[in-house]
């Protein structure tokens, strides 16, 4: 068990090093350490499940060790920029002011085809229309077109918009969420009054939300459900 503990630490650190060296392209949506944990945890759990002759501790100890390491590294990453850089790397600019930075493409081992593919995913056909394209530490590409290339916002068009508020769920699937009532500054009387006005009750409501502007969203439960 102690050996499993030490070997897990060694393998975990080796895996992180390998993922970091492989670069950002393999990672997808996750940071390197998260990717390692994802890969390890499933395999570690499978071993004692599949093989009954393997003691449960042989699976549990490495799993808990991986958890402990992940918590430690996550906490250290929060506290130290240097450590975070070491563990996750740093974002790399691939396009700057419409110009593709070829040296950075080479460093990150991203091909032109891959870059074009990522741009197309962000509805960009012309790299010259991009002011910045940044390869993030989790392998995602953030694309910032030039302001003149972006669709006009309400602000650009000088349109006065309504204020936007976050809706609070009051009734969900026929159940009254009392804690959210307080959050929304409402009470049960208001709920019953509002639902009565719609010819409904709490148990016949699928969704009822209200926001700070007293805008209500209401869906009845469908018959038979």
């Amino acid at each position, binding site marked *: 068990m*102690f*050996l499993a*503990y030490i070997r897990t630490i060694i393998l975990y650190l080796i895996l992180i090093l390998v993922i970091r060296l492989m670069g950002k392209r393999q990672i997808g949506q996750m940071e390197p350490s998260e990717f390692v944990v994802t890969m390890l945890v499933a395999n570690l759990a499978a071993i004692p499940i599949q093989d009954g002759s393997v*003691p449960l501790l*042989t699976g549990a*100890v490495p799993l808990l060790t991986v958890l*402990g390491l992940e*918590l430690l590294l996550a906490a250290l990453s929060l506290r130290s920029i240097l450590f975070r850089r070491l563990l996750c790397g740093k974002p790399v600019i691939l396009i700057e002011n419409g110009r593709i930075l070829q040296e950075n493409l080479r460093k990150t081992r991203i091909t032109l085809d891959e870059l074009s593919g990522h741009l197309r995913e962000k509805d960009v056909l012309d790299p010259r229309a991009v002011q910045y394209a940044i390869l993030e530490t989790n392998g995602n590409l953030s694309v910032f077109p030039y302001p003149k290339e972006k669709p006009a916002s309400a602000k650009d068009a000088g349109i006065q918009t309504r204020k936007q508020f976050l809706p609070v769920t009051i009734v969900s699937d026929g159940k009254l969420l009392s804690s959210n009532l307080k959050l929304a500054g409402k009470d049960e009387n208001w709920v019953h009054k509002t639902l009565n006005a719609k010819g409904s009750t709490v148990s016949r409501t699928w969704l009822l939300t209200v926001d700070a502007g007293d805008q209500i969203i209401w869906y009845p439960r469908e018959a038979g459900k």
Partner: protein
Amino acid sequence: MKRLWFGVALMAVLLALGIFETMSMTKLTEPISDSLSQAVKAAQTAEWSQAEQLTQKAEEKWKTNWDFFSSMNHHGPMEEIDSQFARAEALLESRASAEFAACCARLAEMIRALGDAHVVNLRNLL
């Protein structure tokens, strides 16, 4: 901050359990394999009552700690050791000196290997 301390505590607990496990395995397996080694010598000099006593002592210690051993080791080697003990008992009754000595020597080696497998050294790590 809580997550950091939880992580530290978890790693510390696992480390402590690991050290306890390593020390316990060595402490428990050594006397068993020593008893069996002595039983081999006794059988070779035809001291059957001593051989029987030592074998029974080893088997008793093995059975007493069986739950602990099975929670730390693969069950395959454990079951083999159990069957070797049964074989040793049968050979003891038949007073087959050479076979009994070989059986006990093999048992002693298997139990020693079981304990050694938990020692933290380069060979085990690699």
